């Protein structure tokens, strides 16, 4: 068999990604048809920049979801090494391909003779999985602490702002080098941080519902019990693995027993996740605090105060909804930033295992042979670039559309 030309490679990649194109077309057709009824999301389809950004983001989301848990799209196993395929250029036919196996390495082989194309797709799933969730947690922490700091001001604000500035004064890479090491995982510090940081969504939802419904105890009590029970279970499953919350060689704190544990998180992923949340939340805190300080001078807040509403009701049901525009825009930007941070971690070989297909680790592995075989590093580099670019364009489109009204 002969090597494929670039046209052939692109055509085959296009066919291989078929399900993604179909999903994108369906999503865009449906959204365009009903865009007038979809609020801010619908307005996005009025701006070209926003649409391009959204398309790029959704492309990678679909690639990640189809390629990761559903195992479609990929042509070869991302971890298996095929003899004779080491550092082969894109479009090389696979040596000794058997019946039913895909006959080409579409984007070539890396220095361990693995298929770059399949690793690219599996890597998308790592990013799509971690980045939005980590950003969401950072937002929960930032909102829960930033609203009271901005609303009450005073000593609470001084203390929380000092702590936030303290974390922000740390160079991110130094923090990663200190936190994301196997030695630190042994001490159980990431587990303590997880215990602390993951409790914020619980607090947030609890206060949110309580402040809204505390005048109707008949609704509130069952609602809170149900929601808290569900979220609490998720929280405990999240923080505990193998029946303990913190497990170090010398001691362990018991957690949820294994038969109740819904899912276990790999300690390597957990430490990456926790440190990304930790690095992001002070910035969110500062944004929310600034917005709260601005919005608390508005008339509708004064009206709510006169009505005798409680402070948490005002913060969560008067101030927060009116701060949503800037927060949504920042959320998009921050997912992009988190993606960059994840890539940085991979680039320095911290946290995730070295054979992990995520883009940062792949760039790190490929950069050593960059001068001779650039394809193994360039493919994930371009993937990361397009995803972050898409998120930035999406944020820009959202900002423009939300300023319009």
């Amino acid at each position, binding site marked *: 068999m002969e090597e494929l030309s670039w046209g052939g490679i692109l055509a085959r990649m296009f066919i291989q990604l078929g399900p993604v194109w179909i999903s994108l077309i369906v999503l865009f057709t449906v959204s365009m048809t009903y865009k007038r009824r979809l609020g801010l999301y619908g307005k996005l389809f009025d701006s070209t920049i926003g649409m391009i950004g959204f398309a790029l983001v959704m492309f990678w989301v679909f690639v990640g979801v189809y390629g990761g848990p559903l195992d479609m799209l990929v042509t070869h196993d991302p971890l298996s090494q095929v003899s004779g395929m080491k550092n082969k250029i894109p479009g090389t036919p696979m040596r000794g391909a058997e019946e039913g196996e895909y006959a080409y390495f579409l984007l070539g082989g890396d220095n361990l003779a693995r298929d770059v194309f399949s690793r690219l797709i599996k890597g998308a799933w790592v990013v799509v999985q971690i980045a939005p969730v980590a950003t969401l947690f950072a937002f929960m922490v930032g909102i829960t602490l930033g609203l009271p700091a901005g609303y009450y001001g005073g000593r609470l604000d001084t203390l929380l702002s000092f702590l936030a500035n303290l974390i922000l004064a740390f160079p991110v890479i130094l923090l990663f080098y200190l936190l994301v090491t196997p030695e*630190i995982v042994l001490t159980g510090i990431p587990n303590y941080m997880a215990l602390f940081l993951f409790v914020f969504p619980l607090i947030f939802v609890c206060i949110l519902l309580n402040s809204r419904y505390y005048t109707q105890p008949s609704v509130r009590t069952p609602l809170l019990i149900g929601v808290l029970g569900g979220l609490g279970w998720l929280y405990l499953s999240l923080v505990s693995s193998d029946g303990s919350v913190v497990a170090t060689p010398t001691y362990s704190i018991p957690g949820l027993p294994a038969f109740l544990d819904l899912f276990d998180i790999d300690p390597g992923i957990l430490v990456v996740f926790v440190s990304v949340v930790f690095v992001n939340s002070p910035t969110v805190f500062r944004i929310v605090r600034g917005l709260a300080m601005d919005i608390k001078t508005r008339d509708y807040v004064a009206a709510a105060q006169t009505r005798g509403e409680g402070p948490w009701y005002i913060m969560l049901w008067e101030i927060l909804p009116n701060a949503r525009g800037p927060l949504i825009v920042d959320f998009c930007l921050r997912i992009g930033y988190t993606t960059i941070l994840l890539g*940085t971690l991979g680039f320095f070989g911290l946290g995730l295992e070295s054979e992990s297909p995520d883009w940062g680790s792949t760039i790190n592995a490929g950069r050593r042979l960059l001068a001779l075989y650039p394809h193994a590093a360039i493919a994930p580099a371009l993937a990361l670039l397009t995803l972050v670019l898409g998120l*930035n364009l999406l944020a820009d489109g959202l900002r423009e559309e939300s300023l319009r009204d």
Partner: protein
Amino acid sequence: MGLFILRRLGVMVLTALCLTFVVFWLTNLYPNLEKLAKTQGNFRMSDEAVASYLGKNGYLQPMPVKFGQWLGVLPGWTLEDEGVVTGKCFGADTPEEDRRSFCGVIQGDWGFSTVFKDDVGSIVLTRLGLTGKLMFFVMLVMVPMALIIGVLAGMREGSKLDRSLSTFSIASTATPEYVSGVIFIAVFASSAFGLKWFKGSATSAMDSVTFENFTLPVVTIALYGMGYIARMTRASMTEVMTAQYIRTARLKGVKFSDIVLKHALRNALIAPFTVIMLQFPWLLNGVVIVETLFNYKGFGWLLVQAASNNDIELLLAVSVVSVIVVLVTQLISDIGYVYLNPRIRIA
């Protein structure tokens, strides 16, 4: 103003103390010390050997005591073993009368690097000098480019020029250094594309900077920071261009280029000034990545070496320097803001 600066300096010292204590605590956790002992001795040391090594070198004292010794507010440890006295501040062969009891940061003694087997203060200074050279060229490229792009985009909001320049700045902020660096090396320095215009390594730039060996690292760092400054400049430029005095100038019939250069520019540059100052801490990130990628042995490279070998005293010095860079730039940006914008007063 004097009181404001004093208070800020107080907060700065407090922040630096807190941060160094955090670094100290993290690096002195037992698993990290064990790793240090094993890299210093050998990797198959028994647990007893590790403990005795750590005990001999004063690592097993309580954390606050060790921190006090590092700071120089507590006397350094001494240990007598079979008649030979060793201590933090002196070796066994130092004459009796030269032995000091205090040696810490306050006394100007930054300690001894376990990786480089050299005095921490001098290592940090040489590496900082090299990084300073890199930063100088980065600033030389980044700031003028960013300001020009921002002003050009902001002077006619919504025009084609604005659209394309804004998209360019978004793209540049979306390209982290390890992505653009990899692409630059692959395109301009590898044999795969055939364009061997520049060198993919900046090691030779440590001795003599040439266009060939320094362009790629400088452009890589500058590109990531540029987009953000350009967008801030654009935002403040568009705001200034809608001001009344600009309208008056236009109605008087002043040439458009004169309006931009003489009337708008000075007022539009207040916001970017703060942003440029606040970019320094971010540049530090870029410096670490780029120095690793291009093998330029500056401050960022030192950080990676210190952190990956758990070289405690070197790491502490590195973090003190970077924290001071962050805090000083924040202070300068605040003070500069007040001088540039007379409407703001800090009591």
